[in-house]
């Protein structure tokens, strides 16, 4: 076997080896990224961002991390207090079941609205949907990673 052929095969194997080295590097980064994502507490299934609040409580731009069951209303015992003259004391409940969000209107006087549609009993909500309670508009979003 002459030297030229030996070097040629070395170069050929080097090419394959470098592609695998690239893959190994990339996969190491991907694994680190996945582990970091797994370590972060993902117990919050979503968050609610206040878009508009004429009353000032909650303040516009505020973000609430949501639990599996979150109650909203004017009463101070609610998880999210909505101090708005058009909100009822116990206005609505946000629940996370399986992989979906639902909003339940607790027979409030002025109703709850999802994307401008009045909620009749229970309505499903997706990420990006808008919830209006009284004059307060909020948007449901995925929890920050």
């Amino acid at each position, binding site marked *: 076997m002459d030297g030229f052929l030996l070097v040629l095969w070395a170069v050929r194997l080097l090419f*394959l080896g470098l592609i695998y080295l690239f893959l190994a590097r990339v996969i190491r980064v991907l694994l680190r990224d996945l582990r970091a*994502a797994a370590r972060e507490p993902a117990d919050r299934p979503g968050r609610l961002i206040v878009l508009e609040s004429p009353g000032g409580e909650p303040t516009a731009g505020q973000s609430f991390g949501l639990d599996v069951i979150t109650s909203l209303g004017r009463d101070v015992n609610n998880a999210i207090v909505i101090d708005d003259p058009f909100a009822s004391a116990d206005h609505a409940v946000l629940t996370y079941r399986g992989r979906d969000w639902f909003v339940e209107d607790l027979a409030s006087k002025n109703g709850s609205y999802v*994307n401008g549609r009045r909620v009749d009993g229970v309505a499903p909500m997706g*990420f990006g949907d808008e919830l209006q309670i009284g004059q307060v508009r909020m948007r449901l*979003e995925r929890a920050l990673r």
Partner: protein
Amino acid sequence: MTSGAMHGVRTPALHRTFGPIRPRPRWLELRLLGLVALALAAGSVSLGATVTRRFGLYDAEGLLIYLGALFAAHAGQVLAGRRTDQILLPTVAMLGGISLLLMQRLPQDLVTQTFFGTTLDLAQVQLVWLLCALTVATTLGIVVRSDRWLRRYKYTWAAVGVGLLLLTFVFGTEVNGQRLTLQLGPLSGQPTELLKVILVVFLAGYLSENRALLVEQDTRIGPIRLPPLPYLAPMVAMWAIALGIVVIQRDLGAALLFFGVFLALLYVATGRVSLVIIGFVLFLLGSAVMAVLFDHIRTRIDIWIDPFADPLGSGFQVVQALHAFARGGLLGVGLGAGLPEIAGRPPIPEVHTDFPLAALGEELGILGVVAILGLYLVVVERGLRIGAAAADDFRALLAVGLALVIGVQAFIIAAGNLKVLPLTGVTLPFISYGGSSLLANAVVVGLLLALSDKGVEPPPPPRVGSRWRRVGRPRAD
């Protein structure tokens, strides 16, 4: 002052779009690109030594232009200072580089095109398209900061897609018995490549808006529970379009790709396996009926079941590809050493568009093929991660759909080359020769880059139709 007053309202938006721009280093991307350059240089030397018996880069000019463009794309992204994904570009650059090496190695007269008096051959044309694709991907990754233009006009996009399809039906020219190519003066392109991107945009918009409704179960047929019937209409329409593409365009691959991506997105949006199974069974039933009715589909299936029944006729391509894989073995015969030419032609017809994986399988062996499939997996993984981290459903579905388009397409043609599925004429993303394919996949990569930015503007509020206005102001308690 007049111009200032005129733009007074828009200035904040412009400010948000273009400034303030702070360069942000991307070391990971730079390191990975360096590795890509090293690997491609080694490949080029291996190819050069095999062909010319001297150690040196083969067609150094082409390779250096390509590498220069890669680092220019990197520099552009650094200057733009967005926090976008740093793995996508090097991965795709590796695939594109392998494509360039392959095209340099194949007989150059497979394709010649004349632009403005200069005649370019296979590798040069591919290089030009690769540069265009890089430009498109980087530009989209830098410029796109809002997805409003995709989200808002999903039905418009769908109409554009259907229009493209109809144009191809009517004005398309037949190449190899498939009516896929649309001629526009000196330019020709395959609209189905762009159609797949439009399809994902439409599906992401439709499914994110109606996801909650699709999860509800209120139609029952025996033991099967289905979503409300009106929301199944698009699904049936998709099925009809897929089968229509098979019948009129004779494009089995595109139909398989569209329907596969559609079912995958449906599953991602609803999490219901039953819908996917129903769709899959429908597709199988439709295909079975088609196979009985149409000759060209039956031929494809016959070739798939036994290509050796007619090894010199209809089964020629597939048999040659299988031989190529067999010659390659574990390590391959080396770049440039495979595919002994028969009368100046490579033995596999259409090797540069439909069978690049067979050529690479011969020259790089199964190790090379596995590495290339691994690169596609990396692209898909990035898409899924970007989708998982997205702020809302539309972006999540868009990212997942775009990544799956590349993954499913690579799977379909790789499986076709390896006789796992019937052979269909889709391209191997980023590797096959062809401008339409490269540009469409570049759009996919560019959008994925833009979606991966963590500091991007928040999703726009959902559309409120006439119902919103009907609500009016609430009464005091």
